[in-house]
């Protein structure tokens, strides 16, 4: 799509684009290229000699048990957060859409957690579930459930999932509500006249018409789990206990901080890069096609 009329010349547009392009090259392309280049290099233990090793860093990663576990954690984490937060948000949005009176007020009351930083969300949930002083943790313990996310990997994982889900509900709710409000009422009325029960109307009319929104949100939620949950994990568990909550992004961070294996760390970044590009591409492809079944 282009404008019918436009200005000519290249000096002025070059000047206008210069700040953005300069920052993009210095802080986006250059580091990304360096990551790719470094992922093909291997440094010896003393950092004296560097040699080009093709895909050795990658094959090492795929053979590495920790890396595999971290990938599994990330996948499970994504599925859990996306499923939980999408279904809760959809349930709330459907009710808000029904309650015509007060829909606006409910929207205000439900969307503000979007503004809370992931790290702060982590602090809030840690405080409720902290094994020695958390209010809910004490409740668990008084019921005889030995809750301890600081020592038990499963408990830690689910605590992180809950905090991440909580933070994402408002975003999903906002988009689901917008999606529901854009469905023409006449379609639903037609189904009602045909004698479809409310439940049937939802599953055969509303839900399919909502599928572009659902699909879009599913991708956004997975990207969110991959990248934005870093703060939550760092505050609640620091990737532990025993790496039970170490996602791929967290692993890049903690491996890099320990120094050492530059090539391996770069290879991890490149794999993440490919995953993001893949997810974005899938999203664009499907959004263009407007998923309706």
């Amino acid at each position: 799509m282009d404008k019918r009329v436009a200005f000519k010349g290249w000096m002025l547009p070059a000047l206008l684009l210069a700040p953005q392009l300069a920052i993009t090259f210095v802080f986006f392309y250059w580091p990304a290229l360096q990551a790719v280049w470094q992922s093909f290099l291997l440094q010896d233990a003393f950092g004296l000699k560097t040699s080009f090793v093709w895909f050795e860093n990658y094959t090492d990663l795929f053979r590495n048990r920790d890396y595999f576990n971290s990938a599994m954690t990330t996948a499970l984490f994504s599925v859990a957060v996306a499923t939980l937060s999408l279904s809760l948000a959809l349930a709330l949005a459907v009710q808000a859409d029904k309650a015509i009176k007060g829909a606006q007020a409910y929207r205000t009351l439900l969307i503000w957690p979007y503004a809370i930083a992931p790290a702060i969300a982590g602090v809030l949930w840690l405080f409720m579930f902290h094994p020695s002083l958390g209010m809910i943790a004490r409740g668990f313990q008084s019921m005889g459930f030995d809750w301890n996310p600081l020592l038990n990997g499963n408990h830690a994982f689910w605590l992180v999932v809950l905090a991440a889900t909580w933070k994402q509900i408002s975003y999903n709710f906002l988009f689901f509500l917008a999606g529901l409000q854009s469905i023409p009422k006449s379609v639903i009325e037609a189904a009602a006249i045909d004698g479809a029960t409310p439940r049937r109307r939802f599953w055969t009319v509303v839900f399919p018409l909502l599928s572009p929104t659902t699909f879009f949100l599913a991708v956004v939620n997975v990207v969110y789990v991959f990248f934005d949950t870093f703060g939550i994990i760092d505050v609640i568990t620091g990737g532990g206990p025993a790496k039970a909550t170490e996602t791929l992004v967290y692993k890049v961070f903690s491996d890099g901080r320990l120094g050492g294996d530059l090539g391996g760390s770069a290879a991890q970044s490149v794999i993440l890069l490919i995953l993001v590009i893949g997810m974005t591409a899938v999203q664009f492809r499907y959004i263009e096609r407007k998923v309706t079944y």
Partner: protein
Amino acid sequence: MVERSTLFSRVLPHAILLLGVFIVAFPVYLAIIASTHTAADIINGRFGLLPGGQAIENYSRILFKGTSGTTREPVLNMMLNSFAMATFIATGKILISILSAFAVVYFRFPFRRTIFWLIFITLMLPVEVRIYPTFKIVADLGLLDTYAGLTVPLIASATGTLLFRQFFMTVPDELLEASKIDGAGPMKFFWDTLLPLSLTTCAALFVIQFIYGWNQYLWPLLITTKDSMQTIVIGIKKMIVTQDALTEWQLAMATAVLAMLPPVAVVVIMQRLFVKGLVETEK
């Protein structure tokens, strides 16, 4: 719809929504309550769901003095750092992206499409996938522990440019034609016609980017080493010593409340702009 509405069917949606509001609000409520109690009450679990009497003491202590252990930086300083960072990122993004979108939409020049794609692709390069190389560049430029290092690398991204491009495409061509007939040059058209029309879009983008900037975590964690450069979101992490009884939870929770306040206020007060910004940047 066609079903007869019963009391039950009218009350149920509200009940479910109120339950949702409760789940969403409870963790924050508990933080506010905890921030008004003494350390001992919290450690021993002797606080309920009602506020205690320590509010003024806890908040003034944390704002002006900081915690006694882990990080002694007063939270007021951290908030100023966060505020500076968020404002600078939001303003910077708007500035550079409105200019580049103007160039891409309103000019014909060689490699226009290539340049648009070069900017567009940065959507797929979140800072997390290029942490260490970017960190190294910032370190080499001597920008560690500076506001420039904190903000400039986060300023360039495609979201703003795409949003403005999308908006410019909806601006009628007649305006440009009229402006050209009046003999206006490109920059005059930009100042007198395009910019005034874009103010709502600018404001919506500002709201979203302010929240994004305020909530940054990983980047300031790497770039700041001095306590005086800490943002509040980083500061709170240092107050919480997971395995230890040293955490002064009443102060940490007061800090959490202070860290939530500005971005939440922005969302609630400017809800219309916020929703517009959020929905449109995701298109």
